[in-house]
C-alpha cells in the first residue's frame, strides 16, 4: 500500500487531495530558447498547417467525384483487375518471371516479406548511435533503393495497365455507366424478354450490358445479329415478334447514341 501522509486532507471519503493545484500556465520565460508551450502556442501552428491541408483536401473532393464503376459482375471476363494504387507495386512485382511461376513464393513472401521485416526490425538492424542520414550510408542507401523500386514498379504497373486498355479498345476501357434519368421508348417496354436481363430502362444487369448508348459502337446489322443469334450469355432467339417489329427495334437501338 502506498504511504499516506497522515496530515493530508481529502475531498470527502475520496482519494482526491483537498489541496488544489492552481491551474495557471507557466510564464513564457520558463521555456528556454525558442521552445514553446504545446497549448496554445504550438497547437495553433499545427492547426494552421492542418487548415491549409484541409482546404486543399476539400477542393480535391469537390472537384473530383469518387469513382464508381458498374456493379460487380463476377462473370465479366473482359474486365482487367486493377488494385488501388498503393498496392500496385506488389501487383506489378508478381509479373516478373523471376518471382513468378515456380518462384512465386519469392514474389509473394520472399521479397515483400524481407522488405517489411527489415522495416519492422530497422531499430535493431541499424543499431548505431548515429542519427544523421548521410552518416549511415547503408541504411540510407537501402531505403533509397527500396523507394526507387516502389516508384518504378508503381509506374510500370500503371504503364502496363494503360497499354492493355488501349489494346482492348475504347469500349472495354470505359463501360457506359447507367444513366438513371434515361427513359426507354414504349417499344422497349413491350419486349419483356429483353427487359428481364437488360432492365426496364436498358440499364443492364449482372448478366447483361447497359444498352442506353448501344448505337455508339454497334452497327444496326450487328445489333440485329446479336438479337437473333445471341452473344456471350445471351441465348439466340430471344426475340419472339415478327421480322417487321425486329427491324423497328433494331432501328431504335441503333439510334441510341
Amino acid at each position, binding site marked *: 500500500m502506498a504511504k499516506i501522509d497522515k496530515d493530508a486532507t481529502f475531498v470527502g471519503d475520496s482519494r482526491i487531495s483537498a489541496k488544489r493545484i492552481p491551474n495557471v500556465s507557466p510564464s513564457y520565460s520558463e521555456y528556454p530558447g525558442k521552445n514553446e508551450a504545446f497549448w496554445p502556442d504550438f497547437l495553433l501552428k499545427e492547426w494552421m498547417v492542418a487548415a491549409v491541408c484541409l482546404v486543399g483536401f476539400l477542393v480535391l473532393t469537390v472537384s473530383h467525384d469518387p469513382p464508381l464503376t458498374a456493379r460487380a459482375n463476377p462473370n*465479366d471476363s*473482359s474486365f482487367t*483487375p486493377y488494385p488501388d494504387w498503393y498496392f500496385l507495386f506488389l501487383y506489378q512485382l508478381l509479373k516478373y518471371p523471376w518471382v*513468378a*511461376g515456380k518462384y512465386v513464393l519469392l514474389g509473394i513472401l520472399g521479397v515483400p516479406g524481407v522488405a517489411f521485416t527489415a522495416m519492422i526490425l530497422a531499430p535493431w538492424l541499424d543499431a548505431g548511435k548515429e542519427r544523421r542520414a548521410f552518416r549511415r550510408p547503408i541504411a540510407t542507401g537501402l531505403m533509397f533503393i527500396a523507394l526507387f523500386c516502389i516508384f518504378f514498379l508503381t509506374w510500370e504497373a500503371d504503364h502496363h495497365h494503360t497499354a492493355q486498355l488501349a489494346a*482492348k479498345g475504347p469500349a472495354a476501357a470505359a463501360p457506359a455507366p447507367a444513366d438513371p434519368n434515361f427513359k426507354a421508348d414504349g417499344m422497349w417496354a413491350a419486349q419483356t424478354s429483353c427487359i428481364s436481363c437488360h432492365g426496364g430502362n436498358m440499364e443492364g444487369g449482372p448478366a447483361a450490358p447497359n444498352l442506353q448508348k448501344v448505337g455508339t459502337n454497334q452497327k444496326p446489322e450487328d445489333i440485329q445479329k446479336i438479337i437473333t443469334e445471341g452473344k456471350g*450469355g445471351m441465348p439466340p432467339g430471344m426475340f419472339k415478334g415478327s421480322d417487321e417489329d425486329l427491324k423497328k427495334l433494331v432501328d431504335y437501338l441503333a439510334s441510341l447514341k
Partner: protein
Amino acid sequence: MSKKEISRRTFLNYALMGTGGFLAAGMITPMVRMAIDPILKPKASGSEVAVGSVDDFGPEPKKVDFKINVVDGWHKAESTNVAWVRKLEDGSILALSPICKHLGCTVNFNDPSGKPNEYFCPCHEGRYAINGEVILNTPPTASLDMYKVTVKEGKVFLGEKEKNPRGGVKG
C-alpha cells in the same frame, strides 16, 4: 505435502490466471468457432449442366456460358459459369475453366494482347496453350482446370472442376 510449498500469493496468482483464462476462453470460443466456420463446412457438390450437343464444338475453342445454382450464404442465385469447349483430335470433348491458375483472373482465347491460338491472362500475362497447358516461364504454375465432361445422347454435360493432368509446354 510437497517439499516446495507455494506461497499464498503464488497460489492466488495462479488462481487469477486460471479464472482469467476461463473468462477469456468462455467469451472467445463461440466467436472464433463462428468465424472459422467456412473452413470447416463440407463443400457442396455440384450438378451437371448441359451446354449443347457434341456437334456444336469443333477444334477451335468455343466459349459457352452455362447457368449453375449457387448458394452464397443467404443468397440462392443462378450464376453463369464460363467454359471454353473444344473437340480433341480423338473426338472427346475438353472443357476448360478460364480462371487463371496464377491469381484467379479470367483468361481469354486469342486475346488481342496475347498470342494467337493461346489463352492469355491480362493480369500478369500468363499464357496457356490450346488445351490449357501452361506455357513455361509465364507466371502460372499449373495448367487451366477442366470441367468434368460427360456425353449423354450426343449432349455435352459439364460437371465439377478438376485438375488438368497436362503439364507445362514450352511457348
